[in-house]
């Protein structure tokens, strides 16, 4: 899609979504809030794993931190609860810094389990605060009673739309920036990226912190919507499982993939929720099968077959350059945005 088409299309869609409270039903709003947080979570996980190459099963740490920050700020310190959702992301980002110092000592599969252990530490610490955070019983957002329910749901809905659209925009613009180029270079070859001056650790740290920030904000949104939080549910590995499955089914390393994945996940979840364990078995199997037969996910299949593209993060060479000059051996640094921008097969 051309940049102008994209801008026009997203403006129309956003206008329709923002005006929903005037023409839709509260049920539709609630459904969209839930959809939005799975979408935003998947975008953040894709940023981390798909673009950053950091497979983490510890993202629930930020959901729990965001959720508890909301409750503590809104109930104990009487901060506006919608503002508290945003602060939850900042808290997650701040905690992500020392977390990265530990987790970055591990690579690959051990990084994935290491981040999970760190999330477990947060869960156990929160659960052991029996007085303040009410331990395993969890707490409720009593500040929610301060404003009338229809108004609260309306604000929550708008906030959700901003967060969902914001997550997509964030990943899109980040990947179009120098950071995105650096990440793509790292993905293709860490050694080559280093040799052209990409600061690998700094870029990975930045991505890790941004993903924590985004996931933390969504954590706040989830519990602004649910109104009740427990350490077991908020710091549950299930969140990371959903994020990973959504991204893998939809398509890793594209902006569109997590959107497609979130839609499929959401439909499956709503229609199969009566099936109990079978729904999660189906979801897990889909991700495993996808990984084996189409590692670039459904969006990857659509892109290959029909050339579909909504959010082009690739950069194209001017035609004269692409046809006129042979690509030099060191083309990766000089004119090689083509090689940098190639998708993983």
């Amino acid at each position: 899609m051309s940049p102008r088409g994209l801008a026009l299309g997203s403006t129309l869609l956003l206008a329709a979504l923002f005006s929903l409270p005037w023409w839709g039903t509260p049920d539709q709003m609630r459904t969209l809030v839930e959809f939005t947080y799975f979408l935003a979570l998947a975008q953040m996980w894709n940023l981390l794993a798909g673009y950053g190459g950091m497979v983490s099963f510890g993202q629930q740490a930020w959901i729990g931190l965001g959720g508890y920050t909301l409750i503590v700020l809104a109930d104990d310190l009487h901060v506006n609860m919608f503002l508290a959702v945003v602060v939850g992301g900042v808290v997650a980002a701040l905690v992500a810094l020392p977390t990265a110092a530990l987790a970055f000592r591990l690579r690959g599969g051990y990084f994935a389990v290491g981040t999970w252990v760190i999330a477990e530490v947060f869960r156990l610490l929160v659960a052991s605060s029996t007085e303040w955070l009410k331990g395993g019983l969890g707490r409720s957002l009593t500040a929610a009673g301060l404003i009338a329910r229809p108004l609260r749901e309306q604000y929550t809905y708008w906030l959700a739309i901003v967060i969902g659209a914001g997550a997509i925009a964030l990943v899109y613009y980040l990947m179009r920036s120098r950071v995105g180029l650096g990440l793509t270079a790292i993905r293709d070859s860490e050694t080559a990226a280093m040799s052209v001056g990409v600061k690998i650790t700094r870029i990975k740290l930045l991505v890790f912190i941004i993903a924590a920030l985004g996931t933390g904000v969504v954590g706040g949104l989830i519990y602004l919507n649910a109104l009740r939080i427990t350490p077991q549910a908020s710091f549950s590995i299930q969140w990371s499982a959903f994020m990973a499955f959504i991204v893998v089914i939809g398509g890793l390393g594209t902006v569109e993939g997590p959107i497609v994945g979130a839609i499929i996940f959401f439909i499956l979840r709503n229609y199969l929720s009566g099936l109990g364990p079978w729904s999660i078995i189906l979801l897990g199997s889909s991700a495993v099968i996808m990984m084996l037969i189409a590692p670039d996910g459904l969006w990857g299949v659509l892109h290959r077959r029909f050339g579909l593209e909504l959010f082009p993060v690739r950069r194209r060479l001017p035609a004269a350059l692409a046809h006129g000059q042979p690509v030099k051996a060191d083309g990766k640094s000089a004119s090689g945005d083509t090689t940098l921008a190639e998708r993983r097969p």
Partner: protein
Amino acid sequence: MQWVNVLAQGILLGGLYALYGTGLSLIFGVMRLVNLTHGDLMVVAAYLALVAGQLLGLSPWLSLLLVVPALFVIGVVLQRGLLNATLGKGVLPPLIITFGLSVITQNVLQLGFTADTQGLDAGPIEAASLEVMKGVTLGVLPLITFAAAVLVLTGLQLFLTRTKLGRAFRATSDDPTTAELIGINSRQVYGLAMGLSLAIVAVAGVLLGVRTTFAPSDGPARLIYAFETVIIGGLGSLWGTLAGGVILGVAQTVGAQLNPAWFQLAGHLITLALLAFRPTGLFARTREAG
């Protein structure tokens, strides 16, 4: 005296954790793979022993004769059927596949056996204990577990250093391409390594089932203990795994002695502390690169 007792219990618990960690360490050493179903398959082994007991009347000890080969076969099939296809395609595919299988396994177990906790009945030996000195009693079962860990590690050590297949394992670990040149089929080696890893998991699972109760969703906690054992001991070091298990076990029992809620937390914190101050673990031998 109370603390000597706590220490002794922790050390013996470490034997069980060494059994958890050995298989994880082995496959990471041979093929730089992290199997996220490790803990769930341990629980599967316990359920298989339970079924063997119910259908065939086998004691947990005799059920090992069936459970160990069964898990070995599961390992070979898992590796050759699914994971070998993802070799050389980056870190994500094996992680997603084993994580997906982990979630699937937990839910299938829940469908088959409900979410209720189960236990394996090994008879009076479960409660038997020896008083080694005043105030310090060692359970016979934890002693057997510790002995089993030492036995498994010794056997693995001998296998890796003295046998032709063991040498093939080590050659593949060092450099699969060169190993292929001298006639080693690395895919076959990977299959056998996963089989061996899960055979050890089977022993750990049955011992776990005798020691305590288990439920379908217990796998991830077992995976985390295995992971912590390996991180503390150092990647790829067999005896380091035993030391790692002991340190984890002692940290947990000491933590629980201070506050019953700190059992898991103390183990996590010692792992993270080690990661901060000695990221290669205490006895690392394997190269990190994969």
